[in-house]
């Protein structure tokens, strides 16, 4: 690998921009494709798919047998609600390698003492979310139970192509949420991308157990990427709370 390629790659990574290094393993020649350049690359379809899934691997391409090393930004986990579940969800998220941010405008909830070592923003979603750069490498979880906070945040997350979007609430609560979101003009396909009731069905009862169910579901979505479209994925029973 050329040093200038490595230097450029590290600069892209530092700026949280995805990039792919293509290495011809026979000759050792490599080239760097930045995420913004993928659309006009001769191997556009292969590279776009890799960028979407974040998976590195060997590929037979028109340029020969090449190894694609895919570098995507560290995943982030954005949570609305500095609530009881978040107190476990945030540390588990960190252990799993996510940059965790909690947004809750109710300042009594969003106290730093309850969330040591976690970025807590005591602002409304319309102010707090846009600067976070929510994108395809983001998992978004709505936990406040307050439509004034969760609804606008969900709409923002849906517009940013998050790989996972989950919302706390029973089937009944979610039914009311669906009605509200439809009134806001969201399509059925968009709304179907919200995992609700949230979390894998593991019989979770306590807030900490629900946090485990949520992180399990996020992990499943992250690792299933490319194998099923979210809307076509089989319906699964989930935690109601």
């Amino acid at each position: 690998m050329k040093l200038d390629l490595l230097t450029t790659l590290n600069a892209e990574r530092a700026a949280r921009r995805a990039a792919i290094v293509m290495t011809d393993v026979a000759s050792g020649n490599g080239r760097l494709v930045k995420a913004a350049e993928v659309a006009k690359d001769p191997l556009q379809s292969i590279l776009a798919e890799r960028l979407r899934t974040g998976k590195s691997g060997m590929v037979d391409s028109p340029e020969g047998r090449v190894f694609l090393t895919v570098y995507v930004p560290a995943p982030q986990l954005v949570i609305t609600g500095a609530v009881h579940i978040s107190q476990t969800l945030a540390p588990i998220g960190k252990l799993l390698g996510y940059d965790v941010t909690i947004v809750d405008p109710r300042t009594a909830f969003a106290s730093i003492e309850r969330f040591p070592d976690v970025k807590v923003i005591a602002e409304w979603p319309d102010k707090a979310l846009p600067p976070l750069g929510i994108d395809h490498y983001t998992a978004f979880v709505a936990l406040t139970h307050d439509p004034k906070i969760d609804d606008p945040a969900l709409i923002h997350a849906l517009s940013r192509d998050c790989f996972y979007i989950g919302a706390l609430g029973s089937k009944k609560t979610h039914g009311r949420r669906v009605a509200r979101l439809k009134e806001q003009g969201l399509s059925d396909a968009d709304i179907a991308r919200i995992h609700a009731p949230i979390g894998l069905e593991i019989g979770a009862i306590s807030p900490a157990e629900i946090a485990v169910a949520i992180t399990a579901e996020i992990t499943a979505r992250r690792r299933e990427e490319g194998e099923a479209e979210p809307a076509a994925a089989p319906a699964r029973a989930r935690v109601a709370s």
Partner: protein
Amino acid sequence: MLSTNDDILKAAEDWRKGGRDVALATVVETWGSAPRPVGSNLVIDGEGNFLGSVSGGCVEGAVVTEALDVIESGQPKMLEFGVADETAWKVGLSCGGTIRVYVEKVE
């Protein structure tokens, strides 16, 4: 401890810019149960110092040895490690998988 790939690639850049000879090893293919995913990196310098992981410890020693060779020759190498079998002098993966590791010089 295992480092993240950012740290490893930054180390590769910093080591090279600091004048050290550097090789980069990358897991390019895995079969069966492999300890580290495709894309995992190990950076090695000319003295045999290394950072990162391609197997969680099973074959790093052999990769480092080969990397010194790559640094010397400048020619990249493809290495393959499989289940430790009757050829007991060869290193292998106790987990039963097979991995292919590409080693290249940073120049």
